[in-house]
């Protein structure tokens, strides 16, 4: 049986460009273009061709070789294989089956801005899990699980694509270009790859290395993405390095706005439970793909036909969606996420700053102008699930911050699912002024909700002055950072209180009159937003100051 499968599987596609007729462009990445094409000698079968420019200096040939080889040796109904690949001048053409539905990300942004209905999500996630389970069993990590990499065909079949950053735990040396094979302990990887919002905490802070469980985290984030139409925290810049390149975000955070609608959106307990288990900060507590497949959420999962009728019907074609998105995001430096194949078409590994650029949902501009961010921005640093706080975590998007002392919580519908008080590792480099954060914290606590904003400003200003005197002309960065971090911590605590109150109130709402409570919650929430706004402004100011400092002290501040 296996033999037969083997034999009919490999239909050899022609290995020369003249056999293919390009029909349309369906995706663009930093160094790749994706075409829809017809394979003329094969009855004009429609295919997708990813044309990767090998002459871009960033492109690493070994990485491409690995991706290509990985793809051609995988065989699973939920994994997108390449038919073949060959070079055309300085481009590598990877010929793949054409998935006419495009990526889930493109489907969502074109037709389901507030997320997919739960039964559809279940199907997509289940199929994705099948692929993940296979990959993990083979010793591969995907490392870039997100809706943009999940494709759907006209018959509703779901396939996981894009192994641009995938790695094999059986070939630790090849991942490093032969540099240091011994450093990566077996079954663990240490280099960083992926797209920030979907990245597991241990990938970002990878002192210890990470394993297949990092994919499970990304899978959980993807679930939220499908449920809401965008990944959590997506209104924040994907990394600090990117933060320095933002002028303003064109679109507001629709995520928070859509929450208004989301309130009516009820997700099942099983769904919340499933996602919650994936988002455990402790990788060892996350279930394996295999185990997740047995979760009750997937028990009565519908079939591919359900996706055809509920998701695919009436959907604009992949080509049209791509054209549309091109108009929407004219910015050339945006690495479009509109189409699956478009975004991470570049096999760039380990360069987080670049992979961060993948992200363009909020229409980032990338010139450094500071710090006049528009007032109407929302800076909620919360992950929400149907209006409830899931993960208040302002850290996961800023990996290189030296301070980690933040309370991290994941909640679902009032009950705390994950509580993780990550204590500060005592490697707070050169935190010379241990007194000032404490002082700032006190200040912030004394100042109530309303007053804390001006109060905080004062702290910063006074510290700037003090630091300026001590640092011999420059501003004492350490002090400012310390102060700001303490401030943020206290804000987090306050937010925590408010969240608790909301939860408490929410519990009673069920029984008593809802309107008053709702209004109270709204008001508290507004206050919180204000707090966060001011916090964010201060952060931006700090970034700006840092820029100035580094600009003044030396010109070669590479960041």
């Amino acid at each position: 049986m296996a033999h037969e499968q083997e034999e009919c599987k490999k239909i050899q596609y022609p290995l020369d460009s003249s056999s293919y007729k390009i029909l349309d462009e369906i995706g663009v990445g930093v160094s790749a273009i994706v075409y829809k094409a017809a394979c003329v000698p094969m009855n004009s079968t429609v295919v997708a061709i990813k044309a990767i420019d090998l002459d871009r200096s960033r492109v690493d040939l070994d990485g491409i070789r690995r991706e290509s080889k990985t793809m051609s040796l995988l065989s699973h109904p939920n994994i997108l294989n390449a038919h073949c690949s060959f070079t055309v001048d300085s481009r590598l053409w990877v010929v793949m089956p054409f998935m006419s539905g495009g990526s889930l990300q493109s489907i969502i942004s074109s037709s389901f801005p507030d997320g997919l209905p739960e039964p559809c999500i279940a199907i997509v996630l289940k199929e994705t899990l099948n692929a993940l389970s296979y990959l993990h069993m083979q010793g591969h990590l995907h490392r870039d699980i997100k809706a943009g990499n999940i494709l759907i065909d006209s018959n509703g079949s779901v396939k996981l694509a894009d192994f641009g950053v995938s790695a094999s735990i059986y070939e630790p040396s090849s991942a490093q270009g032969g540099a240091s094979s011994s450093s990566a302990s077996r079954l663990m990887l240490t280099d960083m790859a992926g797209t920030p919002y979907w990245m597991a905490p241990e990938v970002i802070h990878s002192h210890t290395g990470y394993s297949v469980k990092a994919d499970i985290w990304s899978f959980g984030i993807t679930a939220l993405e499908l449920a809401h139409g965008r990944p959590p925290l997506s209104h924040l810049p994907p990394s600090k390095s990117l933060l320095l390149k933002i002028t303003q975000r064109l679109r507001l955070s629709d995520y928070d706005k859509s929450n208004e609608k989301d309130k009516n959106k009820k997700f099942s307990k099983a769904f919340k439970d499933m996602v919650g288990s994936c988002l455990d900060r402790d990788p060892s507590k996350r279930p394996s793909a295999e185990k997740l497949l047995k979760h009750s959420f997937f028990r009565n999962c519908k079939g591919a036909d359900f996706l055809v009728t509920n998701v695919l019907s009436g959907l604009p074609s992949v080509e049209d969606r791509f054209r549309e998105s091109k108009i929407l995001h004219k910015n050339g430096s945006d690495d479009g996420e509109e189409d699956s194949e478009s975004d991470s078409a570049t096999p760039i590994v380990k360069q987080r700053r670049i992979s961060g650029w993948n992200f363009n949902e909020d229409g980032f501009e990338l010139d450094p102008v500071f710090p006049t961010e528009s007032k109407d921005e929302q800076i909620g640093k919360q992950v929400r699930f149907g209006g409830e706080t899931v993960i208040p975590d302002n850290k996961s998007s800023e990996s290189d911050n030296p301070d980690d002392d933040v309370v991290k919580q994941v909640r679902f519908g009032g009950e705390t699912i994950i509580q993780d008080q990550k204590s500060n590792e005592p490697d707070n480099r050169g935190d010379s002024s241990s007194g000032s954060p404490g002082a700032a914290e006190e200040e912030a606590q004394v100042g109530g909700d309303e007053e804390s904003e001006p109060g905080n400003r004062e702290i910063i200003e006074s510290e700037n002055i003090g630091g300026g005197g001590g640092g011999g002309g420059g501003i004492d960065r350490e002090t400012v950072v310390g102060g700001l971090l303490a401030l943020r911590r206290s804000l987090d605590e306050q937010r925590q209180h408010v969240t608790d109150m909301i939860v408490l109130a929410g519990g009673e709402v069920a029984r008593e009159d809802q309107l008053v409570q709702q209004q109270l919650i709204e008001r508290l929430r507004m206050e919180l937003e204000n707090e966060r706004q001011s916090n964010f402004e201060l952060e931006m100011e700090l970034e700006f100051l840092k820029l100035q400092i580094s600009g003044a002290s030396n010109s070669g501040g590479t960041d």
Partner: protein
Amino acid sequence: MKGLFKSKPRTPADVVRQTRDLLMFAGRNNDTRESKREEKMAELYKNIRELKQILYGNSESEPVSEACAQLTQEFFRENTLRLLITYLPKLNLEARKDATQVVANLQRQQVQSKLIASDYLEKNIDLLDILISGYENADMALHYGAMLRECIRHQTVARYVLESQHMKKFFDYIQLPNFDIAADAAATFKELLTRHKSTVAEFLSKNYEWFFAEYNSKLLESSNYITRRQAIKLLGDMLLDRSNSVVMTRYVSSRDNLRILMNLLRESSKSIQIEAFHVFKLFAANQNKPPDIVSIFIANRSKLLRLFADFKLDKEDEQFEADKALVVKEIASLEPRDRP
């Protein structure tokens, strides 16, 4: 059958022995019923996977060194590796991948601080012929290629391949139209020519004439972009290696070689230009330039200097700038010499 093996836990050696028996079965032609055969093959796949799990561990447990040693010893005590390589085409895709990983791992396993895989391969060196010819079979190329790269970690094995007639075939394998296979062959080729320094130096000295004639005409002057790019990079790696200094001196004394390098310097591809520069600089830095090389430099002096004036990396690189300054200075100061 299943019950027979379930009764007591099998030792790693048991798994190897059973794998061997099943491989022999797989090798016999279809004299059994189809259903029986399927059952046996499934059993074989399970065994190969078990071997892999013993060697690599799994998500729950790390590999146990004693079990690995036992497995390795039994594996090479008899001809299991030969059977596995020979009958690999009869296995399904998943089992081929498992088998490849098993073979790869076994090359690094030490038994009483000896790499017994190396000894085994030395006595069964013809297995390498099978592995190399895998590049001519699209279905097997990636599996055999991966095994081959692991086997040439052993110096004696690498020497065998370098000195064999197979070496010439690599110039064609590298340019196969199928990218995966061509890239795999290129990776093996590179490994052969860089891994074992003394062996490589000896090989290049002994085979200088034909090797570089092929290298220049088939690879550096190939019409295929990726071939040129990989070849110029590898050439730089080889010539800049201290152990190959004799070969390098010889290479940079040839005007034909210089002509090829100058053409590569003029390529539109930045990556190729940069790699070409790293070889070109050796011609310029050579303190005993033959007169014909000097005259080429002088004849092309203004063009070269103009080229280098605009020649920059995307990222700042002090070493590169320093090299460039030296090359420019050297070329600018050249005087026509009298012929000896």
